């Protein structure tokens, strides 16, 4: 990794110069902390219904209580944990599937690569939310099912990015030189390809996280989520009946979701900016040419979901 020391530091420097990126990182770290320390920050059972019902926010109940006597602060804190749990597992599994596939597809383009592309296209064709709805409706809304279906539909973006980056690196001079010198495939992979893929993958992962949070919340909102856990989506749907009488019931979970999603989006954007100053032209037009290991501009072409567009995508799908 010695070859990357300089660029890495440059990347970091660029990242910390963008307010959006820093804000995003802060929000994400905050969310993760809340999730990790849920039991400390909000001791008590989030499913307990012991508090007086429909109380406004106060010192005793910072976010108020809902109609059944749930303390919303405890519920929201644990709800954040549920959301991030789903996010974490989904990312891990999607990465474990998508990245290797993408790298292989980029490395061996002919038959294997083509086949992987086909499968990727197919997996991508499914509207993710609908498939998630179908699966939890049929198989039950457990967290495990949710993670499974989300990760099995989310790996495609990572595959595309990994493939694109692998293709780009493969043709670089130092790689061909290394191979000419007799370096094994595996060596090339680990020393050059993977480090090149990771940054873009991280960007995508961050944006993927925000989408997963929204999908999980959406499914819980529809009543199809995991009934045994507190979910922000469920809290939100429960609040609809009391929109006017107890506005705080809707504010707390909605706000929590928004903060987490915003954080991941900003973080992803910030990273994307930092890694590829050339891909967001306008900042330093003349220095664009000096982009070091910047990947080539996202492939143009009749690909409905380019790597770039994929990275820019937000929303539920």
């Amino acid at each position, binding site marked *: 990794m010695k070859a990357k020391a300089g660029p890495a530091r440059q990347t970091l420097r660029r990242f910390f110069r963008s307010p959006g990126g820093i804000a995003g990182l802060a929000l994400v770290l905050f969310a993760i902390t809340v999730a990790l320390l849920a039991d400390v920050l909000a001791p008590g059972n989030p499913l307990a219904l012991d508090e007086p019902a429909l109380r406004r926010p106060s010192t005793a109940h910072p976010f108020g209580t809902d109609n059944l006597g749930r303390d919303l602060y405890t519920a929201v804190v644990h709800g954040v944990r549920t959301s991030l749990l789903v996010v974490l597992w989904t990312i891990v599994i999607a990465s474990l599937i998508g990245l290797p596939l993408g790298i292989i597809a980029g490395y061996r383009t002919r038959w294997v690569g083509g086949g992987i592309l086909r499968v990727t296209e197919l997996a991508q064709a499914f509207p993710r939310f609908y498939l998630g709805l179908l699966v939890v409706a049929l198989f039950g809304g457990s967290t495990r099912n949710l993670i499974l279906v989300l990760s099995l539909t989310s790996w495609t973006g990572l595959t595309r990015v990994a493939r694109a980056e692998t293709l780009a690196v493969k043709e670089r001079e130092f790689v061909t030189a290394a191979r000419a010198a007799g370096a094994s495939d595996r060596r090339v992979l680990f020393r050059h390809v993977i480090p090149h893929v990771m940054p873009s993958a991280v960007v995508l992962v961050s944006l993927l996280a925000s989408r997963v949070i929204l999908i999980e919340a959406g499914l819980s909102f529809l*009543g199809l989520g995991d009934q045994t856990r507190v979910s922000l989506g469920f809290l939100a749907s429960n609040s609809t009946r009391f929109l*006017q009488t107890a506005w705080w019931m809707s504010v707390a979970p909605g706000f929590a979701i928004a903060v987490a999603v915003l954080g991941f989006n900003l973080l992803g954007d910030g990273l994307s900016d930092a890694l590829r100053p050339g891909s967001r032209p306008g900042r330093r037009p003349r220095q664009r040419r000096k982009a070091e290991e910047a990947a080539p501009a996202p492939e143009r*072409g009749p690909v409905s979901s380019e790597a770039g567009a994929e990275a820019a995508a937000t929303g*539920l799908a």
Partner: protein
Amino acid sequence: MSPRYVLRRLLQAAPTVLGILVISFVLVYLVPGNPTLQLAGENADPARLAEIDRQFGFDDPLHRQFLTYVGNVFTGDLGFSYSQGDTVASSIRQRLFPTILLTGSALLLSSLVGIVLGALAARRPYGVVDGSVTLSVLLATALPTFWLAQLMLLAFAIHGGWLPIGGYENFRETWTGWRHTLDVAHHMILPVVVLAATELALVARVTRAGLIEQNESDYARAALAKGLSPWGVIRRHELRNVLLPVVTILGLRAGSLFAGAVIIEEVFGWPGIGTLLVQAARQNDRPLMLGVVLLVSLTVVAVNVATDLVYGKIDPRVRVES
């Protein structure tokens, strides 16, 4: 754009379609649990259960059921929905229009507003306008759809009283013709705005990025040097190039729009296939669930193919990668 290109693109989509069919079928029909019981309902005895199995083909071997199913799909027979008491195709048909209306309008609105915002932001990149536009667009997308819907409902319909509190049309009256159209439009405002708001970010960003890149290009600089205002440059030279990335991401947006539509329809009580799907999910009505998911998946594929074809027409430099 040659016929060969069209054909090749269509053929490319075929395995995807087949794959969707297989996966949907596998999911729905291999799920543990007994749809026969649901169909039979109460007061069913073993004879009745067996008859239902026969009638719906549940006692056939799985591959035979699949082939029958695929055959049926191509003739438009998507099975029978026991929760609606009607065929799946008919149930979907009745609810299709409101969803098309909702997603189509949201698509248009978000495209228009997104392009305008993107253009605004691109005028002076990293300036104040750009920053605020980017941030607000980001915020709009970060807000969960249902929360935004609830807030808008609260603000404009409940407290403000200017807009109806959900629903598709006025319950009381039986308007027809243009009065009815106006009524539906009135009811449509909030749902469309909320759905479009969640979509804005992508369009705005893509437009902005595209425009900024164009601004760098030689002819734009030349035009600017000639004295054209930035707006003028945009208008005269770049509209086609502005539209190009927007069209490209259409496929992506289709999926996102349909997903958002489910939640919007639930919150606003909009009678489309989103609420149909949720109802079917709650009732465990598998044929209906399958029908809706298939329809939406195939629509997204179709949109993707269509955008590719359009893209190919707009930008003749493009060659298809195989």
